[in-house]
């Protein structure tokens, strides 16, 4: 998988957030994007994840232009090829752990029986084996983020987008979750783009970039 972003611009009323941003992410690469609050990290991630549309510029995956896709095709791409991990976990409280993980299988239209086995294996790998039928409300923050990670990786996405994935966790838990995220993504061959302002996370990425003045710059 190769993600290419060229000349992406995105503005809100009175504020231009992305100003002709370029980015290239190769297959299996882990890229960390840092930046202070309000620099447009989440906006960039939403554009990469086809949740938002840039005002101009192109985003392509393996050479296929994504910006011009219809809403239903964008939804299909999100379901099948792009995984999301959010800072606030964004799990569905009315469903069990296993049902939450399987939700991406349902949105992607994957065969549920096979997906269920994969989901249980993923939960086992993140240390939540046997918690599949637990309610979300019974989980700790770290456990919830691991469930969210399993949900994102279940369809074996080509691109995993993580927005401050450890922002709500204590340092020890954050380290464990980040390790699992990178390990699982690596085993599936997924490219990873992590948006964070935590330098310790950025240090574990293969490439570090900083979002400043609406453009990406190499970071030390």
């Amino acid at each position, binding site marked *: 998988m190769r993600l290419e972003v060229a000349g992406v611009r995105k503005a809100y009323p009175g504020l231009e957030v992305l100003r002709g941003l370029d980015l290239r992410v190769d297959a299996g690469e882990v890229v960390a994007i840092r930046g202070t609050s309000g620099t447009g990290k989440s906006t960039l991630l939403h554009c990469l*994840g086809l*949740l938002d549309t840039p005002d101009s510029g192109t985003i392509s995956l393996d050479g296929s232009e994504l910006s011009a896709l219809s*809403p239903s095709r964008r*939804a299909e791409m*999100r*379901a099948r090829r792009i995984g999301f991990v959010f800072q606030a976990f964004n799990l569905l409280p009315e469903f069990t752990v296993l049902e939450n993980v399987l939700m991406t299988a349902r*949105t992607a239209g994957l065969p*549920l029986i096979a997906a269920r086995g994969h989901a249980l294996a993923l939960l086992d790998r993140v240390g939540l084996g046997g918690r599949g039928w637990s309610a979300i409300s019974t989980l700790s923050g770290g456990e919830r983020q691991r469930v969210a990670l399993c949900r994102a990786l279940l369809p074996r996405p080509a691109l995993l987008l993580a927005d401050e994935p450890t922002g709500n966790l204590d340092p020890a838990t954050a380290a464990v979750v980040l390790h699992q995220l990178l390990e699982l993504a690596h085993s599936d061959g997924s490219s990873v783009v992590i948006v964070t302002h935590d330098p310790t996370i950025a240090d574990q990425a293969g490439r570090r970039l900083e979002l400043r003045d609406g453009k990406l710059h190499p970071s030390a």
Partner: protein
Amino acid sequence: MLAWHLGIRYLRTRRAAWLALAAITLTVAAPVTVIGVMQGFLDVLRRQARASESDVTVYQSWGGPGIADSRERRQQLLDVDGVAAVGPFVQLYALMTPTFIGDQSSYGLPCQIDAIDWRADEIIGRLRPGLLHPQPVEDLSAPPLKPSERGSGFLTPAWRDELSLIGLRLAPALGLGPLPPPPRQLPPPGVVAGRELLYGSGLGVGERVELVGSAHIAKTAEISDTIGTGILEIDKLSLIVPLGLGQELADFTPTKGRPLRVDGYRLQARPDVDLDKLASRVHEISGRRADTWLHRRANMVKSLEYQRNIMAFVMLAIQAIAVFVVYAVFSTLVAEKRHDIGVLLGIGARRRDIAYAFLIAGIAACGFGGALGWGIGWGLLAFLNFLSKHYGLLLFPQDVFYSPDTPISWDARIPLFFIAAMGIIGLAAAALPAWRASRIAPVDILREGG
């Protein structure tokens, strides 16, 4: 798949959804009960009307000179495509006076004579055995007979006489030798009186009466049985007599060169024949007026049908009120689940899956609530009759309505109709919240955070 999963789960786990379910259940149970009883009354009325009417009646104008009756004419009617049986009749108004009254001029009960060929009418099925009492009811103030106690056993004196003659004819064939005819006095013809006709007159089964028809011809007859159709205008006026007696009273016997006449013919149609078309065919072939039973009793049956339809419309209007409940519940549900919907759209759910989830929840609530309402409605109807049967609770005055039971239609089309209506209403009520849910922008939700 995703839509079903979400819709059913949201329905199950949200308490607000149970409110919608309760509203749907009640607005199905109420019409099932009310229309079930109204249709029951209508069915009873139809049966009662059919007891006095054949499928199609061919007749002359009231008070006309009569239709010449002949085997050929009956065969002509029988040959019409769709006709299964033919029965002649004579109808006239008469005064009935008990023979034990000395001064007959002061005691005359007006009655409407329906003179029939017993056998032909039995073939037609118009006078079903169920309408005639197996035992003559001597005590007319006694409570009504149960339907199971009604039945056959209708024997007029004329029939008894005929049966004895058949016995005499059979005797030689059985080797009993010719039997001498028994000395007997021919009894007067037996007539069947409407139950209400006798009710207040003091007359009873076995009494002899004198009948004076519109032709001022008097004849004696014996009341051999009563008939109760449940229609007051029939039961209070009807006197069913043998065809010959009716022809004598109407002066339809062959005299002065005029042939034997009748007022008309009752026709039984073959199964699945369109009665209106059959009536038209009979009219074309016979040249006489021909009407279906529904046409002749349209005032009674149609008026109750209109009442039922109006009530059904009122019930649909009540169901429509449930739109607001369902709409409010689903709007609340969408507002409550706004974040989840945004997340689902974010992880790849299609907008139509989200909309379908709420529509499916609406239909499922209507289906389940409707089925529950169906059960409650029919349970209530059954309970009404249980109270009546086991605790003597009279739901209707028995001098108006003969059966102690509430007439109930168990026709499943009634609850299915209201469940279908509720389904459409529920779908309409859930449509706007569903559409709103599908228009949620996931990026806005995800920016808001958890």
